[in-house]
């Protein structure tokens, strides 16, 4: 792409706000009432982390892995790709994240205890749990609410919360696992900013 400096973020937005939020609603309606399971999972994550047991933290990582795999397939690959040319690539990144989290959950942790999770993990997990409220707060219908395991941003927030709370794993490993969720949050923030303009 020549003259790349002449392109702004707005040049990469290829759909209208109405079409984007309609897509989110279609996604929710297609899988309703499975969002209840997703909310239950969001509540289970802090419970698992609070036990301090490495087995429970493995469970939290596996739950996050499952969420990434689902978001990657059900949202990015199956639906978002209808209107966003880069969505298939984002779906692949979600699949990679799922694989990385699942692998981390299976890695033996020789001789490491499981220190109690700090407050950061709790804050991030609370943000993921409350994320669906952004819809009514923005005067949008509940059908457009974004839920962990269904939409990328609450899934990324919850994953960062799990990583912050999974202190049985080395910090460098958790930073590595945070790369794709952070990138996902940045993409989501950029998209939200553009559709709101």
């Amino acid at each position, binding site marked *: 792409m020549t003259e790349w400096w002449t392109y702004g973020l707005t040049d990469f937005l290829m759909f209208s706000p109405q079409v984007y939020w309609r897509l989110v609603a279609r996604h929710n309606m297609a899988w309703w009432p499975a969002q209840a399971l997703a909310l239950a999972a969001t509540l289970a994550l802090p419970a698992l982390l609070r036990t301090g047991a490495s087995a429970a933290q493995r469970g939290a990582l596996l739950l996050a892995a499952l969420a990434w795999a689902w978001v990657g397939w059900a949202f990015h690959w199956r639906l978002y790709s209808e*209107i966003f040319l880069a969505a298939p690539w984002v779906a692949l990144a979600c699949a990679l994240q799922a694989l990385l989290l699942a692998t981390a959950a299976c890695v033996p942790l020789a001789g490491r205890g499981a220190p109690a999770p700090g407050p950061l993990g709790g804050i991030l997990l609370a943000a993921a749990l409350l994320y669906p409220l952004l819809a009514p707060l923005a005067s949008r219908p509940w059908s457009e609410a974004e839920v962990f395991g269904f939409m990328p941003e609450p899934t990324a927030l919850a994953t960062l919360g799990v990583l912050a709370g999974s202190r049985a794993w080395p910090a460098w490993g958790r930073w590595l696992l945070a790369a794709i969720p952070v990138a996902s949050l940045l993409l989501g923030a950029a998209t939200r900013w553009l559709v709101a303009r």
Partner: protein
Amino acid sequence: MKRRTLLQWAALAAADHAAAQASPATRAVPSSGERLPCVGLGTWITFNVGRDPPARAHCAQVMRAFFEAGGRVIDSSPMYGSAQGVVGEGLRSLGARQRVFSADKVWTGGDGAAQLEATHTEWQLPRFDLLQVHNLLAWDKQLPLLQKMKDEGRVRYVGITTSEGRRAREFEQVMRNQRLDFVQFTYNLLDREAERRLLPIAAERGIAVLVNRPFRQGDLLRHLQRRPLPPWAGEIGCASWAQFALKFVIGHPAVTCAIPATRRIDHVRENMGVARGPLPDAATRQRMAAYVAGL
């Protein structure tokens, strides 16, 4: 006196009615003499609605209103997501495949022929009227492909596109050195760089001009709508800033067709209505540009 006034008003009303029913103004494609309505329909963002059936049906209704108002030129691209398929479905449901002047693009550094094959499938058309190299991407590879297709009768016209003034120098060189029927670039009340070189070159070399972003994707109208129209806007048949902005563009004698993108039926009717009324001459266009620049 009263009767003569009544007769005069009746004549004016009849003329207005006739103008409203008349076909939109047309411009000739220099390479063939074929005449095209000078307002068409773009599909960037507006027709990228995915597989949502109600949204696709609505786009078909926009196309219906467009054709009913005398429109013909519809422009799309593989870059526009699902827009091509939405147009193709609309054409099929409206039975408008013979009516449309189909304009699409090749947008790849790779296998242009394969991409064009997919584009044909999306539009459900056997042959395009116009194929363009989108944003000059790999033009040295794709333009010869399009020219070969034209020589073989598989497309009627070939062209190149850019937007927002990108790669202007290279665009100009391609215009001067290649066989082109059409060029497409940005031109509007605020983005007037094309007046200095691209529009005169197009006129000099007999190349038809499609204009994209006549409203700067809506930003121009959002900027202007807070200001009053000039008091003389009615003299050129403008009752809104959209009409004012579009008349400025299609008033340029080198412009063949402007392609504003919209998904609103009232807007598409308003846009097509612009092509029915009087078009501003050069002096009036200067006055229009100066007025907006002074706001």
